[in-house]
């Protein structure tokens, strides 16, 4: 596994040291993998997680021992920590990759133009066919309305906190924003539901938007605040020193400078609320039919559709639930990409 340099014995310089060849980590990895599988087979362990763990531990131990022998202890520690970082990275990526993989695998079964453009209508859960058009429409309307409410309020709150907020009012606002960040989505739903019950209203899409807006607002405030704080004070002073009033300075200098970051923050918060089920379940109720009016009558939404289809326990409904999940993930992925694109496009330019 190791190759000690041939000239190790006649080292003349104090700066020179042993060095593992570039292929050494791969050799150690292959060796420990083989050994791990061997040990597992001998001990009769069948789970692939078990032999992967044994191999990982063997790899880290092997790296340390080999590197300590050929190089020195500092290099050995460096290699071990590098390996640990890689293991942590793999641990983080494996669930994500497997989630995307299984969603794509199962979701593409019924995902086609018909599925995207038709509602469940009179299709029973046990039958094949049907689609998610009504759910996409509901999600777009509910999330869109929630964004229309939460984004301006959130951005303005952040502007107040960063540009004007002094003293106890600003501290109180910050505190309540923090509290709001921790509100479970079901509680936000219950809050709106209690108001709806007071006025004896039936479920409708906009009620869901209100609950989603409550969830979205603190995220927008926080991200916008961070972005505004990144704007150098010198720019504000430069503008003020030109005799520009403060509000115009904020509008024309501070906001454009941080626009990319603010947009990204809003997009990410949209992605966060697009997957909420609980408040929608309470307030919008779900529906099999196309209802394009968010202000009257029950509506569907993608996460709620997934929940209800999966809950029905029929094979055809499972397929539809996976396809809807894939659509939701794709929707959020597209939003993220758009946010990144906007951030890059709007970022202050440095080119010559």
């Amino acid at each position: 596994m190791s190759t000690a340099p041939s000239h190790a014995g006649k080292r003349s310089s104090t700066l020179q040291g042993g060095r593992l060849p570039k292929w050494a980590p791969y050799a150690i990895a292959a060796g420990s993998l083989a050994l791990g599988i061997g040990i597992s087979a001998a001990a009769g362990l069948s789970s692939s997680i078990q032999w992967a763990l044994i191999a990982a531990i063997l790899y880290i131990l092997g790296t340390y021992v080999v590197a300590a022998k050929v190089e020195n202890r500092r290099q050995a520690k460096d290699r071990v920590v590098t390996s640990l970082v890689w293991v942590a990275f793999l641990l983080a990526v494996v669930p994500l990759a497997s989630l995307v993989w299984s969603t794509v695998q199962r979701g593409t079964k019924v995902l086609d133009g018909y599925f995207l453009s038709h509602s469940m209508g009179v299709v029973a859960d046990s039958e094949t066919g049907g689609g998610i058009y009504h759910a996409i429409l509901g999600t777009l309307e509910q999330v869109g309305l929630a964004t229309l409410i939460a984004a301006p309020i959130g951005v303005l709150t952040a502007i107040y906190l960063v540009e004007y907020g002094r003293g106890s009012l600003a501290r109180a606002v910050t505190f309540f924003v923090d509290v709001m960040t921790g509100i479970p989505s079901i509680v936000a739903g219950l809050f709106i539901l209690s108001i709806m019950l007071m006025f004896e209203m039936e479920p409708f899409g906009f009620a869901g938007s209100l609950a989603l807006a409550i969830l979205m607002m603190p995220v927008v405030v926080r991200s916008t605040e961070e972005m505004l704080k990144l704007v150098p004070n010198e720019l504000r002073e430069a503008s003020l020193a030109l005799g520009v009033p403060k509000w115009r300075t904020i509008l024309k200098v501070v906001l454009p400078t941080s626009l990319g970051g603010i947009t990204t923050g809003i997009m990410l918060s949209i992605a966060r609320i697009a997957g909420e089920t609980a408040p929608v379940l309470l307030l919008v109720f779900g529906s099999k039919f196309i209802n394009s009016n968010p202000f009257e009558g029950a509506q569907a939404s993608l996460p709620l559709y997934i929940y209800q289809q999966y809950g029905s326990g029929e094979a055809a409904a499972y397929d539809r639930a996976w396809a809807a999940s894939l659509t939701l993930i794709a929707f959020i992925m597209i939003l993220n990409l758009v946010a990144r694109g906007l951030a890059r496009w709007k970022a202050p330019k440095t080119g010559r």
Partner: protein
Amino acid sequence: MAKRIDVSGLNAYYGSFLAIEDISMTVEPRSVTAFIGPSGCGKSTFLRTLNRMHEVTPGGRVEGKVMLDDENLYGTGIDPVAVRREVGMVFQRPNPFPTMSVYDNVAAGLRLNGSYKKSQLDDVVEKSLKGANLWNEVKDRLNKPGSGLSGGQQQRLCIARAIAVEPKVLLMDEPCSALDPISTLAIEDLIGELKERFTIVIVTHNMQQAARVSDRTAFFNLAAVGQPGKLIEIDDTERIFSNPSVQATEDYISGRFG
């Protein structure tokens, strides 16, 4: 066009901390006045009281009188925004607006104040850039981002931006401290030209620079850390550097302390 500044009995605070105490001086129009002194003695703070930028700092507060010709900048009913249009400022670090092109940076003062005619804008931008000795270097890249220029060019862009709104007084807070000697020379030459049109006040840590560019020099000092800074003396630059009337000034200039 240039105006005289007459300061009397000026105190400036940060919260309850008295930063500069009882400063009185006159700044002559169409001349360059340099402020020198050790770090923390309140030169920059004093400079910022002259266009009411001091109060932008949280807790910043000013007492006393600053007369711009015959108007007290701290009188009742004075709009700080209007003051800053008359008294422009250039900062230590070049700070062009990163979202704007070279052209937009120079036009920013007029555009953001909303008081301009579209047809005049091109002329103002060209005139200001020429005034800042930058026109020849940037005339082919007016629509490129201002932050793509070199440090010295950026600082001259900031000067162009400041003079585009036609202030009466131009305050410069160590405008060359982030620049190399060649860019510094360019800006010093520029200061020499600008004083024909503006009243210029410059804060500098570089005493040779003060000697080179200024007509009058003010020396600030503070008794100890935590004590307020004070104006020790102000006189013709030649006298300050050859035969100052206060011993502390001579000590500072000859490098015996500070």
